[in-house]
């Protein structure tokens, strides 16, 4: 069979920095190919080259047997290459039907809109991959997983032969990922190839026929997915074997707890949630999206209202009506999405670290005390080894892992008693992920109470000493980490 796409010896250099060197890739029709690599490994450059957005310095691109000398985005689309970007490129103000059909209408160079036809086109596209969505719903108001389906439908309509999905699962829960994989298999049955770009190892192992692993712009492995297992993948991705120590809590379970949550209810989000947390413990809370895990975290942080129940901190009942209340009681929260909820991207590292404690930095005459501002910033840059260690750099210039450290530093600088981490390593590459875990464990050893909200089971298994499982707004199971295996917990998580 003739390959749909073949790249041979592709190299690309940006302003003296080598992004890709001698990368080759062959994709056959109907094949699910995974492109795996840490952040900054050259994945996105490769996608851009295939999409015609970036021109390679050297190498050959052959599509459908035709050598493409200067691949333009238009050519790529005409040949059937469709990229689904992380943000889906949808129109939040338009309906599902129009979002699906609009590119199709555009490429047919239509001048007039026939709404009957738009709906029919959308319906057909959905039928192809066997999904059902409300055609008249506004895209801005539907769940992320549905948005993704809209994007896939739209790509299929463009006579896609190859769909490139960039980090498609980042915002999806396990169950939604399961549904997405189903759809991808349906796409595959239509004879369409899928290039699945990811850094989540489990997914790669589950869905891929073939995997291409790149590191520092070079191919380190191009293999059949069946030949791979997780440790092998990790080794190839990071260039080292990551053996992470698990966390053991040394404290006394009979000592007075730091936090007691009693029958906490927020109507429509979660109900009757009770648990204890001791100083130095790392408690995991897991569940699917919509299980109430994020809402529980937000309620403990005063961000959403509590209807009944009680929160007791160090023996004192506390009322959390606002984030300010929570903060005043020494509760910190590192949000799920650091770019939109955690960071001030254009501001300096220093401003980011100090954002939480500005009111405490008042010196003479209620003015900010510059000396202590500087000292605090330096202290946390050093303690969390934020790189590069320049307080004046804007946060947007940092890598994902270092950005997450800045967000952590912001909270640690306020000396919290309880720190809630929601998806602490989301979108962080494997190497930094482990280092972040080490930081969190060290904090717990120093006596901080930590709650980690996540559906990344390996992460929970490595960092927590206890894990709560939520479903439909209730805690349904509680485990000591020692009592359960990763496999077991994963199965219970997705069980309905």
């Amino acid at each position: 069979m003739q390959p749909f796409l073949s790249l041979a010896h592709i190299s690309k250099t940006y302003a003296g920095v080598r992004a890709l060197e001698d990368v080759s890739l062959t994709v056959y029709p109907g094949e699910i190919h995974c492109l795996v690599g840490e952040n900054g490994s050259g994945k996105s450059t490769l996608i851009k080259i295939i999409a015609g957005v970036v021109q390679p310095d050297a190498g050959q691109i052959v599509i459908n047997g035709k050598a493409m000398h200067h691949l333009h985005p238009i050519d790529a689309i005409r040949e059937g290459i469709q990229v689904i970007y992380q943000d889906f490129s949808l129109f939040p103000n338009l309906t599902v039907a129009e979002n699906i059909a609009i590119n199709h209408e555009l490429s047919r160079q239509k001048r007039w809109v026939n709404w009957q036809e738009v709906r029919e086109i959308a319906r057909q596209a959905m039928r192809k991959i066997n999904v059902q969505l409300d055609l008249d719903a506004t895209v801005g108001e539907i769940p992320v997983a549905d948005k993704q389906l809209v994007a896939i439908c739209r790509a299929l309509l463009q006579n896609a032969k190859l769909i490139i999905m960039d980090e498609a699962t980042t915002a999806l829960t396990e169950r939604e990922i399961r549904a997405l994989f189903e759809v991808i298999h349906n796409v595959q049955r239509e004879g369409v190839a899928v290039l699945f770009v990811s850094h989540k190892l489990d997914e790669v192992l589950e869905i891929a026929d073939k995997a291409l692993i790149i590191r520092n712009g070079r191919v380190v492995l191009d293999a059949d997915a069946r030949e791979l297992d997780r440790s092998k993948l990790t080794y190839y991705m990071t260039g080292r074997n990551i053996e992470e120590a698990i966390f053991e809590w040394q404290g006394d379970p009979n000592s007075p707890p730091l936090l007691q949550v009693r029958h906490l209810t927020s109507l429509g989000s979660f109900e009757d949630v009770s648990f204890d947390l001791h100083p130095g413990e790392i408690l995991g809370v897991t569940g699917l999206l919509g299980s109430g895990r994020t809402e529980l975290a937000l309620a403990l942080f005063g961000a959403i209202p509590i209807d009944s129940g009680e929160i007791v901190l160090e023996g004192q009942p506390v009322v959390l009506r606002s984030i300010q209340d929570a903060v005043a009681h020494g509760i910190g929260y590192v949000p799920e999405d650091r770019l939109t909820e955690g960071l001030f991207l254009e501001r300096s590292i220093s401003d980011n670290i100090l954002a939480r404690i500005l009111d405490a930095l008042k010196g003479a005459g209620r003015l900010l005390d510059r000396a202590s501002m500087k000292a605090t910033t330096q202290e946390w840059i050093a303690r969390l080894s934020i790189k590069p260690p320049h307080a004046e750099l804007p946060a947007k210039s940092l890598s994902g892992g270092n950005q997450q450290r800045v967000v952590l530093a912001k909270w640690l600088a306020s000396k919290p008693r309880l720190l809630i981490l929601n998806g602490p390593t989301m979108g962080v590459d494997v190497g930094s992920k482990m280092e972040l875990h080490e930081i969190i464990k060290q904090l717990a050893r120093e006596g901080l109470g930590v709650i980690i909200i996540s559906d990344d089971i390996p992460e929970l298994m490595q960092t927590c000493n206890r894990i709560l499982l939520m479903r439909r707004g209730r805690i349904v199971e509680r485990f000591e980490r020692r009592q359960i295996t990763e496999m077991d917990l994963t199965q219970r998580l997705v069980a309905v």
Partner: protein
Amino acid sequence: MLVKKLFSKQETLVAITLFGLCLVIGWINPVFWTAGNWFDLARSATVTGIFAIGVLIVLISGGIDVSFTAIAVFAMYTTTVLLKDAQYTGGMWLFFVIAALIGLGLGLINAFFIAQFRLPTLIVTLGTQSMFRGFLLFVIGSKIIRDIPPGMADYSKAFLFTVTDDRGVTVGLHSAVLWLVAVAILAFVILRYTMLGRSIYALGGSREAAERAGFNITRTQVFIYAFVGVLAGIAGMIYGGLNRQANAQDIVGQELDVIAATVLGGASIMGGRGSVIGTLLGVMLVVVMSNSLVLMGIPATWQRVVVGVIIIIGTAVPALRTLRRQRRSVNVEPEMLSPVEGRT
């Protein structure tokens, strides 16, 4: 489901308010329901309405235009000066053609800065408003022209038809209202049934997505600002005709009021949302309210207070509704929500 969707729309809310308001005013003073009063209302709504349609298109595309009033007065005054100097004695149509062309030209200047340099629309139109007005007053003239050409002078009496009421007073519906109807229909068709119109919504929804989808953003923006320029030129000319004079220091200063009426009608100031019907309703609400104070026995000095309160309440109600919706749930699965709001 359908009823709920209908009621969640700002358009419906404004329509109900408008209807209720008419009932109340008519109950207080039956003069409200006379033909004469409605002809007056139509006349008052015409210029604002045409401006508002232009503002609507800009708002949908995610922009803001504050220069359209300057374009309007520029086109109106310049046209009057030109045709007066030419001692033109013909009909009003030539005034409209020239004013529209001048509006087109000035609109293209806006489009050039916005599309070519990707500058924020508010900033560009602030700058051009200042330039257009400055140029008009400095180069073309700043005196009020009362001795206008005959074609323009006659226009103020160009009624579609007239009605004589019980007291023997003859009132007429001015033909300018046809412009508003034509502009509204044209804008509706463009926005709803052409790819150009959809590209305006797409641009306002997500510029980046619109670019990736292959929309020609430059063409869309050129169309938007050129179209608004033409509308402003025509509206300015109507304004001059109805007032039987050309005042170069007029019109500018109304832009924020027009934007307010448009937003009241459901157009989002953040872009991507808005409709012609809503805009017309918003304009009517403001016009009816401010024109009917005297009918209700409220001193005319209260007009601005009332309009201000309408704008605040009209925008606060939907804002509070979204706030209440956001305050709960962050990303709760649909089945966990109450059955009414769930998508099943």
